[in-house]
């Protein structure tokens, strides 16, 4: 007993040994940069000298200064980012949901199908974009050859947007599909059979029983997918180059260019843009969470 007390009195360093390394990494590579990132949004900074505090100037310029190119950049980039999210997210929920429902019937080769749809989500975005860029190009792809299309899809609207959405869906639905498939597998078989006996068709069973049973997974994937799509960068960068005439240029491309592009870094303004994008992401996901959760 007394030995026990003595052991407790002695400073116990084991917790520091176990959680210390992670806490240290967390502070250096996450906490500090996050706090600092907010601070430099209020400064003029070129990445290397010490930042100079300018109050709300960056935000004023970006939001209200009609003369400034940052103002145009920001609104154009934010508009395109939102547009991308609004078009892409529904497809990234509905397509995998439909695929999962079809897989649930366990037709022949269903495991192979499942792998096929899942696989692209493990692939590097740059590799995927190279493949699709050649596939959609007039000279080398099948479009011109089989379908006699002679407009360059990647620099003509609305095809450029359609291309971005198609490629994004192709690339990223794997995870959601697996989540839905597992969730649908867990839906009560008894309930489904009872409904079937009562004469409910497959469609009405899907909407009345399956969908409500996997509500939590729908909520989870919607929020996660939305956050992921807000951070869109690689697809427009490598597929459309932000064109035609900046109509697919997203905000992250501007943030990256202003801070790390050619010429002197404008990291302060760029950080202010990043902070505002971050606020948008948080507001939208909080909103989705409340909206979807309360729909009982």
């Amino acid at each position: 007993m007394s030995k026990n007390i003595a052991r407790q009195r002695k400073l116990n360093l084991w917790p520091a040994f176990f959680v210390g390394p992670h806490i240290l990494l967390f502070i250096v590579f996450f906490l500090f940069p996050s706090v600092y990132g907010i601070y430099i949004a209020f400064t003029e900074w070129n990445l290397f000298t010490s930042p100079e505090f300018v109050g709300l100037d960056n935000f004023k310029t970006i939001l209200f200064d009609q003369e400034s190119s940052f103002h145009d950049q920001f609104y154009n980039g934010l508009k395109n980012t939102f547009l991308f999210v609004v078009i892409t997210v529904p497809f990234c929920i509905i397509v995998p949901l439909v695929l999962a429902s079809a897989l649930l019937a366990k037709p022949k080769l269903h495991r192979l199908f499942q792998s096929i749809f899942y696989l692209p989500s493990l692939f590097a975005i740059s590799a995927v974009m190279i493949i699709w860029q050649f596939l959609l190009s007039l000279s080398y792809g099948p479009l011109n050859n089989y379908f006699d299309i002679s407009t360059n899809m990647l620099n003509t609207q609305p095809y450029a947007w359609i291309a971005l959405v198609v490629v994004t869906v192709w690339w990223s639905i794997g995870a959601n599909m697996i989540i839905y498939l597992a969730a649908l597998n867990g839906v009560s078989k008894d309930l489904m059979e009872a409904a079937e006996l009562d004469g409910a068709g497959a469609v009405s069973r899907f909407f009345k029983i399956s969908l409500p049973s996997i509500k939590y997974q729908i909520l989870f994937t919607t929020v996660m997918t939305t956050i992921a799509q807000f951070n869109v960068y690689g697809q427009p960068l490598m597929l459309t180059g932000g064109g035609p005439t900046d109509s697919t240029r997203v905000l992250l491309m501007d943030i990256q260019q202003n801070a790390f592009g050619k010429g002197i870094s404008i990291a302060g303004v760029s950080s202010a843009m990043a902070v505002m994008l971050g606020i948008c992401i948080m507001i939208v996901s909080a909103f989705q969470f409340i909206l979807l959760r309360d729909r009982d």
Partner: protein
Amino acid sequence: MKQKKTTKITAFSFLVIMAILWVGPLLWALFTSFKSREEIQSVGFNFLPIHWTIGNYQELLFDNASTPIVKWFLNSLIISVCHVALVLVVASLAAYGYSRMKFKWRDTIFMCLLASMMFPGVVNLIPLYSVMDTLGWVNNLLAIIVPGAASVFNVFLIRQFAMGIPRALDESAKMDGANEFQIFIKVILPLIRPVLAVVALFSFTGSWNDFLWPSIIINDVEKLPITPGLQLLQGQYITYPGLGTAGALIALVPTFLLYLFAQKYFMQSMTLQAGIKE
């Protein structure tokens, strides 16, 4: 019974059409990478090569100084393997701390870590560059290997899993005179192997596929990993689909192989992630 059969047939036909849409681009890329430059220029689009050639791969791998793809591939391997090792050590130690030990502020600290996951990552991108500059890690592979180990999500996953291991096991080891580190190594570690496999796979693919951050922090072409490297390759070979697709496919090989051998864990991991808050 009959109805079930028609459902199966409908589902099958639908899936076949979708699967063609999904596999088509990959197969076309694969075939294109085996077509000669001349063939692509003269024939235009053709699904299969008329004359199969490995010339694109030869040129890309052995005769190409401006886009050193072999070097990039090796860089990526080094980065991903080191990243996985670091994540496993750091995250499993931390997870042990938060799931098996009692210390002051434990739950408060853990809740703060969890809350931090809500913070949008885009905000710390620019200052992280500055941190790397201070550490002297700009243009250094460490800048890509280390920061990801700060992730809270891995700690969270492993902790959730470890919570399910009965306390009695630690207690009896403690009775036998084992210290915390021995308990961690001998009792807990063997039991959390399934979740460690999941974390390892996801850290590997995440690190291999990371695009934006490496392209910011590495300016030296020789030091690039393959995923951002492909952007240079795209610029270089925009009119040579054979070389472009060959490069893209080389970059897909490791994650593809990993999937073939560890399919089970990939499937498990998704349900693990989504099922957590239930």
